[in-house]
């Protein structure tokens, strides 16, 4: 048997627009991954603890409210604190291009803006796993 890739799709912050997150979750399932979905309004702490319990390989963060610069890096920091920074974090949502370099610098390994075809996300996961 080969190892299954497990991915946590999480929505930090307060925005309730989970259409994108759910779409990605469903598409990743169709691509053969095991996807854990947490629902909306998750604190960085809850996301990190969930990721560790579920022993995921990736965390996908989705945020549309504009709080990504504050909340995404917080998830990275908490993972480091728990010695779990081997888990790869990618992000998505309404994120201006000018914010992307800053996010990458802080440890968000890939950022997918609206309109990214799902096959690009899958290709990224396959290359990073």
């Amino acid at each position: 048997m080969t190892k299954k890739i497990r991915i946590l799709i999480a929505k930090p912050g307060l925005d309730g627009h989970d259409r994108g997150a759910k779409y990605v979750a469903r598409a990743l399932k169709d691509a053969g991954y095991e996807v854990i979905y947490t629902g909306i309004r998750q604190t960085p702490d809850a996301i990190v603890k969930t990721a560790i319990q579920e022993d995921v390989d990736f965390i996908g963060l989705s945020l549309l409210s504009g709080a990504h610069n504050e909340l995404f890096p917080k998830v990275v920091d908490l993972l480091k604190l728990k010695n779990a920074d081997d888990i790869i974090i990618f992000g998505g949502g309404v994120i201006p291009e000018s914010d992307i370099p800053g996010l990458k610098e802080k440890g968000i390994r890939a950022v997918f803006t609206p309109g990214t075809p799902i096959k690009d996300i899958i290709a990224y996961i396959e290359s990073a796993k």
Partner: protein
Amino acid sequence: MSKDERFQKRRKNWEDTTVKKTTDRFPERKPEFATSSWIPADRIDIPESGDFDSYSEKLGFPGEYPYTRGVQPTMYRGRFWTMRQYAGFGTAEESNERYKFLLEQGQTGLSIAFDLPTQIGYDSDDPVAEGEVGKVGVAIDTMKDMEILFDGIPLDKVSTSMTINAPAAVLLAMYIAVAEKQGVSRNKLTGTIQNDILKEYMARGTYIFPPKPSLRLITNIFEYCSAEVPKGNTISISGDHIREAGSTALQ
């Protein structure tokens, strides 16, 4: 096919009753309407012949049951729709400036966007508000913020729409209190609060309470406003966010 007189008769009846009642009180924008090349534009166009009963049942006339052709007898010949730009960001001060700009540009109604902590009933200093304050709308913690938000905007002159659901009761209370402070009595206030909690559960996720107490709050607002704020629409049922969550037009 020869002309069916019944259509013209019905139309005359509509002009003489439904339309007249309205135009007596609110005349149309212009005495006559025409296209760019001066072809006269009638108030309404109807068939000359065909299935009269089916037409009456399915389409009828504007301002008359079943309202397929519109709810007002003169529609935009009377007055245009309310141009109401949804706006709000950052602090009450910044949003106040934007509202004044929009009113200057010819906007006819205000529509307030609140930030997410406000929409879900948290103060800006709550830990869950981290990163979210002022992001998708204006941050309102207390009546003080509301006073700043409407500073210099006479609340008896503009109609205000607030996109708020779960904490609608609180924000409406602040609005009423600010108006009173401006010297505007509550029965002069016009506007809408988008207060459709079902939508929150279905599509947008800014809910707080379970359905039952939520319905109680809505009913409370209803009863209070029927007595105290007679000009306001207290609920607005939303198809928008459900559509935004991806439903088709039918749903």
